């Protein structure tokens, strides 16, 4: 027993005593993108390519700093963030309510779910003309489109989670004679929370996808506008810069969301993947 625990615990202790090791694992994710960037930078610098259509990292960085210095970048990022935030809010509220109701009651599920599933099959871009006719070309049509994108993953996630709550756990609530509202608050909500966080994250991902669709089809500001502008004026560095900003902000918001949810999910008994 003691032999085992010594031989098992030693590498862990060594791992924590080296401060570098703590950063080594996350840093692994940077190897591929940074390596490719360095390689391309080198190729352009050596003159193997002029880098006009595929700009090297240094040129993208220059474009970014230029945009940031003029305040343009901040304005576009703020516009896009506002749209995603508003669309995400509306989509999450609608998706949560619809998912909870259809998950809880078989009657509403039979009533609503087929129609909602049919709507889900419609490609997002197909809505754009209709929303523009209905809501005009300004913010409302864009936010509505993003809300639609966020709605479906949240709706599906919540409905599936409510349906798959363990009957045995619900029976514990019944034995303790919980009322309907207590059952929701003390059993169902905590039980669906891990799946809900996952649904919110996929909803946010789709929100970022739909904001590009919305901004590509007519906007005067926003990261999507930077993309179109870069295409029309032949500035590939600006396009790539906007894409990079999308990646950074998208990843950051997703990370913030998981970070905010983590304290509520400490109890989870997870596999967590092989270390």
């Amino acid at each position, binding site marked *: 027993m003691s032999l085992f625990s010594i031989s098992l615990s030693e590498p862990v202790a060594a791992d924590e005593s080296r401060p570098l090791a703590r950063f080594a694992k996350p840093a692994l994710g940077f190897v591929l993108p940074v390596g490719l960037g360095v390689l391309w930078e080198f190729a352009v610098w050596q003159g193997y390519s002029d880098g006009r259509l595929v700009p090297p990292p240094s040129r993208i960085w220059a474009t970014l700093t230029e945009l940031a210095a003029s305040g343009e970048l901040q304005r576009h990022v703020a516009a896009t963030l506002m749209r995603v935030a508003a669309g995400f809010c509306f989509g999450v509220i609608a998706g949560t309510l619809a998912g909870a109701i259809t998950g809880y009651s078989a009657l509403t599920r039979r009533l609503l779910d087929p129609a909602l599933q049919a709507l889900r099959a419609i490609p997002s871009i197909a809505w754009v003309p209709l929303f523009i006719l209905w809501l005009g070309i300004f913010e409302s049509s864009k936010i509505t489109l993003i809300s639609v994108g966020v709605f479906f993953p949240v709706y599906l996630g919540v409905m599936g989670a409510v349906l798959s709550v363990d009957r*045995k*756990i619900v029976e*514990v609530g*019944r*034995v*303790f*004679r919980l009322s309907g509202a207590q059952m929701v608050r*003390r059993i169902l909500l*905590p039980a669906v929370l891990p799946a809900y966080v996952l649904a919110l994250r996929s909803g946010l991902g789709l929100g970022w996808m739909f904001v590009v669709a919305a901004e590509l089809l007519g906007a005067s500001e926003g990261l999507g506008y930077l993309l179109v502008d870069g295409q029309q004026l032949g500035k590939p560095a600006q396009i790539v810069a906007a894409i990079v900003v999308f990646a950074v902000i998208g990843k950051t918001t997703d990370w913030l969301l998981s970070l905010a949810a983590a304290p509520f999910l400490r*109890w989870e008994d997870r596999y967590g993947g092989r270390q």
Partner: protein
Amino acid sequence: MLTITHVGKTYANTVRALDGISLDVAPGEIVAVVGGSGCGKSTLLRLVCGLDIPSQGSVALDGDTIASPHQKIGIVFQEPRLLPWLTVAGNVGFGLADRPRAERAERVARQLARVGLADKASVWPRELSGGQAQRVALARALVMRPEVLLLDEPFSALDAFTRADLQDHLLDLWADTKPTLVVVTHDVDEAIVLADRVVVMRPQPGRVFAAIEIDLARPRDRQSAAYDFAKRRVMAALDRKPAIDDCETRSDHGAAMWW
């Protein structure tokens, strides 16, 4: 007094799980219900608990008909069924949510100490062993001070040593307030170690075949001749071994004693 009167249960698919079960359990009595799988013993317990309602007949506690879970009836399931998002203390105090915080904390602490898990109060259920988790489930039921505690094969998922320990522990806990215990089990030894009376059920449809008094002083010696004799009687009623001549078996159901 727990009174089960002519209870039958027929499921929607016309399977008759139980038929004409009658059983009276006196306050403080320990009754074990044994039988092979599919004899309806768990169904019977769900009816007593109020999780299901009988198709015929009725279950009553002190004249109060049970149609939904009752405040004075607690249950421990085969699995611990702890809520994974609550700590051990949170799980034990789950049913005390309407009590003042101080009273709740005090009762939870006392009950946890009683099941020997005072040091695990702030631990998540995932960190417990099977036996510890089942003790938490026992504490969660006992902290409500039930008049009747139902146990549905409570120790069947545990290894033999832990099971024997927990059987002794259960009797020890029972001695505190002497609630009525109804233990469903498929383990004949468990039934004889625990019970004042062993009710033997047979399937298709589930009915009471025999009720055997176990008149042995506690703690019971699992090696004694009297214990062995009681075990043979139960086994015979379960039709597991040839009957022995001097076995005196009383049938509540009036079924013919064919041996």
